[in-house]
C-alpha cells in the first residue's frame, strides 16, 4: 500500500535539509506566537487596575492554547526527523527542560484558575502563577536554546543572554500585539514598555554576539562574522529602531509588523548557526541525525499538507478574534 513511497531514497535529495527548515519554521512560529502570550503575561504585571488586567486576559484567552501547541509541534517534528537530537537536547539539559515545562504549566493554569473565584487573595495567587510562568518560560526556553546552539554551560553568558533576549523580544511582540488591539491610552502606556524592551533586546543581542565571537562559543565566531549573519543583525536593528519610531507615532499595526520581524530574524540566526551541525555539543550533522528515507518520506507526505491546513486554522482563529478587545476577561 505504500509502494508509491520510495524506501531507499528521499522524495527529493534535500529532504533532510527541508525538514531542518520545517523544524526551524515550527520554532519560529512558537517564539513569535507564544511570544505574544509571554509578553502579555509580563506586561500584565505592570497593570494594577482590574479592568486593564481583564483586557489583557481577553487578548490572551482565545489564542494562547493554540499558540502553545507550536512547542509540541517543534518537539515532535524534531523527534520524527532527528530523534537523536531530541533525546540529546532534552536529556543533556534536564533541569532546564523540566523547568521550562513546569513554567509553562503555571503560565497556562494561572488565568484558568483566576476566573473560577471572585476572591482577591485567590486572584492574587493566580496572577503570580501567570506572571511568573510568563517570565520563566521564555527565560528557560531561551537558555535551553542558548546551551544548544552555543554549546555553553547553563550559567554562562551565552545561555543567559539568549534567555534574557527571548524574554525581551517577547515583551516587544506582546506590547505591539496589545497596542494594536486596545484603547489608545492603554496602547500608549504599553508601547512605552515595548520601546524599552526593544532597546534591551538589541543591546542584548549585540553583547551576546560579541561574547560568542570573543570566546568562539560552539565554534560560531566565523559564522557570526559572515555576511548572512551581519545582514540578519542589521535587519534586526532596522526593524527594532523602525518599530520604536512607529510606536512613538502611534502607528501600532505597522509597529506590530516590524516587531514580528525580530523573533523571526532571531530564529533565522539560530538556523544559520545550526546548519549543518544540528547539535554542536556532539558535532552531529543533519545528514547523520536524520531518520531513514521511508520514515521521513511518510512524515512529509502525511504531515506537510496538514501543516498548511494548520496555518489556515490560525488565519481563521486570528480572524475571528481580530479587532479591538474590551475588558471582558478571560471568558468561559
Amino acid at each position, binding site marked *: 500500500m505504500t509502494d508509491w513511497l520510495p524506501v531507499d531514497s528521499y522524495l527529493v535529495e534535500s529532504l533532510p535539509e527541508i525538514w531542518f527548515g520545517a523544524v526551524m519554521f515550527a520554532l519560529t512560529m512558537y517564539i513569535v506566537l507564544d511570544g505574544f502570550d509571554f509578553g502579555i503575561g509580563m506586561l500584565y504585571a505592570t497593570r494594577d487596575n482590574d479592568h486593564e488586567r481583564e483586557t489583557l486576559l481577553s487578548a490572551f484567552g482565545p489564542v494562547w492554547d493554540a499558540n502553545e501547541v507550536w512547542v509540541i509541534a517543534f518537539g*515532535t517534528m524534531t523527534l520524527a526527523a532527528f530523534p537523536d537530537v531530541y533525546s540529546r537536547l532534552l536529556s543533556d539539559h*534536564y533541569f532546564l*527542560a*523540566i523547568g521550562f515545562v513546569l513554567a509553562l504549566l503555571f503560565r497556562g*493554569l494561572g488565568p484558568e484558575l483566576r476566573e473560577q473565584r471572585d476572591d482577591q487573595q485567590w486572584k492574587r495567587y493566580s496572577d503570580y502563577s501567570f506572571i511568573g510562568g510568563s517570565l520563566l518560560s521564555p527565560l528557560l526556553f531561551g537558555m535551553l536554546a542558548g546551551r544548544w546552539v552555543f554549546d555553553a554551560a547553563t550559567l554562562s553568558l551565552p545561555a543567559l543572554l539568549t534567555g534574557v533576549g527571548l524574554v525581551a523580544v517577547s515583551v516587544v511582540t506582546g506590547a505591539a500585539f496589545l497596542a494594536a488591539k486596545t484603547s489608545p491610552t492603554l496602547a500608549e502606556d504599553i508601547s512605552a514598555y515595548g520601546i524599552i524592551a526593544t532597546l534591551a533586546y538589541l543591546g542584548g543581542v549585540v553583547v551576546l554576539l560579541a561574547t560568542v565571537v570573543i570566546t568562539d562559543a560552539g565554534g560560531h565566531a566565523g559564522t557570526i562574522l559572515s555576511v548572512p549573519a551581519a545582514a540578519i543583525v542589521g535587519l534586526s536593528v532596522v526593524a527594532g529602531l523602525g518599530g520604536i519610531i512607529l510606536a512613538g507615532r502611534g502607528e501600532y499595526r505597522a509597529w506590530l509588523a516590524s516587531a514580528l520581524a525580530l523573533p523571526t530574524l532571531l530564529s533565522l540566526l539560530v538556523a544559520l548557526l545550526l546548519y549543518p551541525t544540528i547539535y554542536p555539543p556532539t558535532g552531529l550533522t543533519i545528514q547523520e541525525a536524520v531518520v531513514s528515507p521511508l*520514515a521521513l518520506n511518510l*512524515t512529509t507526505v502525511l504531515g506537510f499538507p*496538514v501543516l498548511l491546513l494548520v496555518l489556515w486554522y490560525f488565519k481563521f482563529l486570528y480572524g475571528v*478574534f481580530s479587532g479591538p478587545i474590551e475588558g471582558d476577561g478571560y471568558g468561559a
Partner: protein
Amino acid sequence: MFAPVQSLLDAGFALSLLDGPAIQLSPEIASRAQFGWTISVHILFAALSIGLAPFIVYFTWKEVRTDDERFTRLRSFWVKVFAAGFVMGTVTGIPMSFQFGTNFPQFSSVAGEMIGGPLAFEAKMAFFLEAVFLGVLLFGRDRVSDRTYVLSSFLVGFGAWLSGFWILVVNSWMQTPQGYEMVMRNGMEVARLTDPIAAFFNPRMTWMYVHMINASVISVALLVAGVSAYIVWKKRDADAWGTALKIAVLILLVSAPLQAIHGDAYARHVEDTQPQKFAAMEGHYETGTADLHLFAIPTDPDAFMRPSEENLFTISLPRVGSFLASGGDFDAVVTGLDEYEQNPPVPLVFWSFRLMVGLGFLFIGLALWGGYLMYRDRLTDSDWYLKAMIAASPLGYAALLTGWYVTEIGRQPWVIQDVLKTDNAVSPTLTGTEATLTLVAFLVIYTGLVLSALYILRWLIEDELRDLGVTESKGHWYGPLPGVSDDD
C-alpha cells in the same frame, strides 16, 4: 558571580533531606515513577476530552436546533468543564512528551522513527484542531454563525478522538511491535521503519483504541451521571439535569456491556501476543493448564504481595483458563511466569486487573438499574439510585487507570516488548538526585493540579445550583459538599 547558585545545584541542597538510601531513588525507578505518576494525572484529562466530546457536540447541536433552554444550560456547563479539563490536559501533557527526551532518551533514539511520526501527526492533526476550535467554542458564540459554532464543537471532539488514535498507535506498537528492522545509527542499534501500515496498524492497535475510547466514554458518562444526580438530588425539578442523567444512563446501557464483551476478547488477544503479561494478570506462575479465576479475595495478607492459590479464596473454573486462551482446548498449556528470567510485579498487575474487571461489572449493574428505573419513569425519584450514581462518579476513572496499570506494568521489564528493556531506555547521564528532585516537584505540583480540578468542578456545580435557585449553599467555598465525598 553564580558560584553559590551553581554549588547549591551541584550539592543538590534540597536533597540533604532525601539523601538517605531509603529515599533517594535510582534514576530508573525515579524516572518510571515520574512518568507513571504524570501520565496517570494526564490521562484523566485526556479521557475527559475524549469522553465529553460527544456530549458537547450533542448539547450544542440540540441547542442550536431547538433553542431549548435545557441544552443551553447543559452545553454551557459542560463546555466550561471541557475547557478547564483541556487546559489541564495541555499543561500536564507537554511534560509527557518532554520526558521521552529528558528521562528516556535511549527510548526516543531507538523508537524515534516509529513513534516520532505518529506523535508529530498528533500535534499537527489533532492538538491544533482542538485548541483552535475550542477557542471558537469558548469565546466565539457571538462571533460566528450557528453552523460554524456547531461545526467547531464537532471539530474539537474529532480532534480529541484523533489525538487518542495517534497516541495509541505509539503505545500499541510498544506492546506488539512490527513493521521495523534493527539497524545501526550513530553507534546505537535503533528501529528503522520498513512498513508503516504494519507498524501503525499493529495487532494491538484496534483492540486498544476501541477499549480506550469506550473506557473514556464510560468514565465521563459516570461523571455526567454523578453530577446530574447530585444537582437533581438538590433540586428535583431541574429538568435539564434530569435529561442529562437520562442521556448518561442510556450511554452506559450500551457502553458498559460492550466493554465487558470486548474486554474478554481483548484478554485472549493479550494471551496470544504477550503471554508473560497474561500470566501476571492471572497469577499463573507455572507453565501448564490454567484455571479461570472469576473472583478472588485474599485469605492471607501475603496475597497482596504474591497472589496465588494458597492464599486466595477464589471462585474458579478448572481449566477454563486453558480453554479460553487456546480457543477451545481444556488441556492447552498456558505459559507461566517461570519461563521468564525477569517478571513484572505480579501483585500490581493481578490486583489492578481484578479491580478493573470488578468495576466494569459494577457499571453494568448500575446501568441496568438505571434502565429499569427509566422504564418505570422513576429515574429522578429514587434517592438510592441518585446516591449510588454520586458515589460512582469517580469510579470510571479508577477502572481506566487500573486498566492502564495492567497494560503498562504488565509489559515490564520491557518498554518495547522484546525489543528494549526499560532500564536500558533511561538516560545514562541522569543522576538519582536529579530524577528524585523532579519526581518530588511533579508529585507536589500535579497533586495541587488534581485538587484544583476537583475544586473547579465543585465551584461550577455550586454556581449552577445558585443559578437554579438553590439557596442553602454555604457562604464558604471550602468545606465538604453535603453528601458528596470525592466528586471527580
